[in-house]
């Protein structure tokens, strides 16, 4: 599956099928700090993502001062 990441903006190819939480673990990312979006819909951590899916992993942490 094609996975889009931010900070910095990049794309990686990951072999599916795979559960959302396994995908995040493989990329060393914490669920609490990210949203996983398939197409334009949010998915939960137990959702199985297929090879054909377009996935965006969106960071949610922001902050300056």
């Amino acid at each position, binding site marked *: 599956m094609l996975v889009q990441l931010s900070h910095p903006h990049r794309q990686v190819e990951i072999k599916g099928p795979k559960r959302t939480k396994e995908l995040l673990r493989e990329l060393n990312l914490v669920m609490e*700090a990210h949203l996983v979006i398939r197409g334009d819909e*949010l998915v939960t*951590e137990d959702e199985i993502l297929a090879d054909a899916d377009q996935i965006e992993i969106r*960071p*949610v942490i*922001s*902050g300056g001062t």
Partner: protein
Amino acid sequence: MNCTKCPTSTRAVIGLPRHNAAFCKACFTTFVHEQVARAIKAFKMFTPEDRILVAVSGGKDSLALWHILLALGYRADALYVNLGIGAYSEESHRKVRHYADTVAASHGAKLLVHVVEQEAGAGIRELATILHRPTCSTCGTIKRYQFNRAAVEQEYDVMATGHNLDDEAARLLGNVLHWQNDYLDKQSPTLPASVEGFAKKVKPLCRLSEREIAAYAVVNRIDYIVEECPMAKGSKMILYKEVLNRLETESPGTKQRFYWGFLDKQTTPAPATESMAEKDQRTLAPCDTCGQPTTAGTCSYCKMMAKAKTAAQPRA
């Protein structure tokens, strides 16, 4: 994972371990609105008659806040401060303008804009360089000043910011790590207009995590700027948030207990204090076996050793 609230168990779009719940789109939107309504009521933030000025940046928190307040029927306008950070400011300004035109206008809400460069002659990066100050600190001072000035001059009853549970927990961690007691007093979700010239300030998103607000924005198709401010890279706040998120992952509810516990202690009057020595003198007496101080008749060491001796004796 199915929605834990729907009687028909619709497929969930988000799991919330700290609430031991999962929600579909509709129930999640309701959950977020309820959390904001509870914060508004608990901290006496404003009434439906009040005029609210929302500080918007183009990011998820402030645009979600504006969206929620309008959805709940409040009279909320917004102010955007264009900081002059090149393409980042252009993009965030465009997002705010788009939301104002396509959503807020239909609620009769308006967008005010302040451009730093027009008043100061330079953007904040240049100002920070001239002043030899960190950019984030310069930015914070400018935004606080401009938001307060607009709220007071244009006679809004209250100014609302999009600070969320993660912001407040991270700020609390930083303040506690450095024992900045003066700042602890300013962490309340409602700060009164203490003197003439100060607007009342509120944080209606203080019960919601950063992830929940981002999810709300996605579910409700709010087009916000995902890119992080280029000036915020390596900030202490982001480090504190990462540490807290590690703890949250291991023990869901940590951030909430940390910040809400602090607020409870702030609002609950402290009981009459008793020194540690006074408490010890009141509660401790010599162990009836060894004589060392204990709260029980026999101390826990003597009990443990007696039990070990009994267990170790060969059976007859």
